[in-house]
C-alpha cells in the first residue's frame, strides 16, 4: 500500500510536471535558506497574483482564440480603480482608525477593481472583438492579436491623457504589525494579497470544474460546434469569458496596488510574465497555469537576487525557450489535444 504510493510519487516525479514542481519547491527553499525568507515570500506573493493574470490569458486564448496582448491594461484598470476607490476610504480610515472600514475597506477597493475590470471586458467585446468576429472569418488569430495590441496602446494612452503619467499609489491597505509565520515577518498587505489570490483562483477552479456554466466554457474551448449542438449560447459564453478573464487581471492589479502604483504602463510587466507562464505551462489547464505562475515568479525573484534586476526578463525567457525545445506542448500541456492546444 505505502509502497504503491511511493512508486506512484516517483513516477510523477519523472514526469515533466512532477520534476519541475519539485525542482521549483527545492530551489525556492534553498534560496530562502541562503539569502533569507523574503525570497520565498516574494515568490509566493508574485506567483499568486501572476496566477490570476495567467488564468485570464489562458481563458482568452482557449475559449476565444484571442492571443491577448491587452491583458496588462486590465491589470492597470484594476489598479487605477482600486486607487480611486481606496483613496477616500483611506482618508476616512485615517480619521476613524477603529472603524470596521479599516478591515473591509481594501476589500471594497478590490471588489471595485473586479467589477470595473469585468465591465471594461464587456465593453471591449462589444466595441472591439464582437464587431471583428462578425466580419473576419479567415485569419481570426492574427487579426484579433493585432487588435489587442492596438487596444493596449489605446488604453495606455487614454490613461496618460485622462489621469496623467504620474504614479498613483497608496501607502498600504492594511495597517498594523506584520504577521509573523515561523519567525518570518510578512507585511499584512503581502499576506492578504496571497490569501486573496488563493481564494480567487480556488473559486475560479471550482467554478470551471464543477458548475454547469464553467463546463460550458470548457466545452466551447474544446469544440465550438459541439457546444452549439448541445444548446450552449456561444455569444453569452464569450461575453462571460471575456468579463471573467478581465476581472481576474483587474483583481490582481487592485490587490497589488500597494506594491505597484498605478501608471499608464504598469500592466506591461505582469503581461509579459503571464505570457511566460502560459507558454511554459501549456494551454488549457488552470492548475498548470497556477503552478507555472509560481515557477516564473521564482525565476524572476532569483534572477533579481543573484544576477541583477536588469536581467529579470532575460533569464526566464531564455530558460523557457530551452524548455520548449524539449517539451513544445509546455510542461503541463495535456496529452489530449483539443481546441485549446491549437
Amino acid at each position, binding site marked *: 500500500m505505502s509502497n504503491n504510493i511511493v512508486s506512484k510519487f516517483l513516477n510523477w516525479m519523472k514526469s515533466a510536471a512532477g520534476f519541475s514542481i519539485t525542482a521549483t519547491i527545492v530551489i525556492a527553499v534553498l534560496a530562502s535558506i541562503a539569502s533569507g525568507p523574503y525570497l520565498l515570500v516574494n515568490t509566493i506573493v508574485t506567483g499568486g497574483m501572476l496566477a490570476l493574470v495567467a488564468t485570464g490569458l489562458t481563458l482568452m486564448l482557449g475559449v476565444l482564440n484571442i492571443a491577448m496582448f491587452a491583458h496588462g491594461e486590465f491589470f492597470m484598470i484594476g489598479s487605477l480603480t482600486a486607487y480611486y476607490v481606496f483613496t477616500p476610504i483611506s482618508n476616512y480610515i485615517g480619521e476613524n482608525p477603529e472603524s470596521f472600514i479599516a478591515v473591509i475597506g481594501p476589500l471594497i477597493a478590490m471588489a471595485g477593481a473586479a467589477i470595473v475590470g469585468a465591465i471594461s471586458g464587456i465593453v471591449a467585446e462589444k466595441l472591439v472583438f464582437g464587431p471583428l468576429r462578425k466580419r473576419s472569418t479567415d485569419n481570426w488569430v492574427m487579426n484579433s492579436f493585432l487588435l489587442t495590441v492596438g487596444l493596449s496602446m489605446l488604453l495606455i494612452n487614454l490613461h496618460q491623457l485622462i489621469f496623467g503619467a504620474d504614479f498613483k499609489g497608496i501607502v498600504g491597505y492594511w495597517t498594523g504589525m506584520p504577521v509573523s509565520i515561523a519567525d518570518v515577518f510578512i507585511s499584512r498587505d503581502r499576506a492578504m494579497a496571497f490569501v486573496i489570490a488563493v481564494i480567487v483562483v480556488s473559486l475560479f477552479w471550482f467554478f470551471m470544474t464543477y458548475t454547469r456554466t464553467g463546463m460550458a466554457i470548457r466545452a466551447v474551448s474544446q469544440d465550438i460546434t*459541439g457546444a452549439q449542438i448541445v*444548446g450552449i449560447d456561444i455569444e453569452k459564453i464569450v461575453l462571460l469569458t471575456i468579463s471573467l478573464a478581465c476581472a481576474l487581471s483587474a483583481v490582481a492589479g487592485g490587490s497589488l496596488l500597494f506594491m505597484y502604483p498605478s501608471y499608464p504602463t504598469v500592466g506591461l510587466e505582469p503581461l509579459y510574465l503571464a505570457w511566460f507562464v502560459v507558454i511554459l505551462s501549456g494551454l488549457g489547464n488552470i492548475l498548470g497555469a497556477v503552478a507555472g505562475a509560481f515557477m516564473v515568479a521564482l525565476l524572476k525573484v532569483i534572477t533579481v537576487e543573484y544576477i541583477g534586476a536588469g536581467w529579470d526578463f532575460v533569464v526566464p525567457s531564455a530558460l523557457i525557450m530551452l524548455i520548449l525545445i524539449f517539451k513544445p506542448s509546455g510542461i503541463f500541456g495535456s496529452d489530449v489535444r*483539443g481546441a485549446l492546444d491549437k
Partner: protein
Amino acid sequence: MLLEVKNLDAGYGYLQILRSVSLNIDKGEYVCIVGPNGAGKSTTMKTIAGLISPMGGGIIFNGEDITGLSASQITKKGISFVSEEMNLFVNMSVRENLYMGAYIIKDKKIQNERLDFVFSLFPRLAERKDQLAGTMSGGERKMLAIGRGMMSDPKLLLVDEPSFGLAPQLVANVFESLDVLKDQGVTIMLVEQNVTKTLAVTDRGYILENGKIGLQGASCDLADDPHVRKVFLGV
C-alpha cells in the same frame, strides 16, 4: 407533421449546395437520406440543426417556424444533431460529455435519468465513464456522440453517418441502438453510406443527388428501384 422542410436553399458563403430541397417527417417515423458523396446530405442536416443559415426556403418544426434560428435555439426546441465529425469535447470525461448533452435540461434529477438511459443503451460508456473522450476508440466515440445526442431527450434526432469507419460488428451495434431509440418513440432522420442496410431498417427514404431530392418513397420500394440499384448498389 413533426418536421417540414420547404424549398430549402443552403450552402457555404456564396457557394450554393442545396437547391430547393423539400422533405418532411412525421412523429415516430424513421426516415433516411441517401446519396452519393458530396450530394449535400450533411449540409441538409447542418441546416436543419441551425449550424448553417438557409439562403432560402423554410423549416417548420412542431408547427413552429424555426428558419434562421441559431443552433442552440433549435436544440432547445427539441432537435438533436449527431454530426459526422461527432464534435465531442475531447478533454472532458465521458460523463462530462453526456452531462453537456443535457445542457438544456436544468433539472439534475432528469439529467441523471437520461444518463441512466444512455448507459443502459450503451453499457460500454458506463464502464468508461471517467475516461477522456479524446482517448476513446473510434467506435466508442460514435456511441458517445449518439449518447450525447440522446441526453437532451430530443423529439427529433438527426444522425449523420453513425457507422462511418466502424467495424461490421460495431455497425450492427449502432443500427441496433437506433432501433431501440425508434421503439422508444424517438423520431429519427438518418444519413448513411450503407445504403442496403439503411433502406432495410428505415420506413421511408429520400435520395439526394447534386443538392436536389431525386426520388422519395417507402424504403422497401426505393431498394427495388432500378435507378437506386444502379447508382448505389451497382446492380
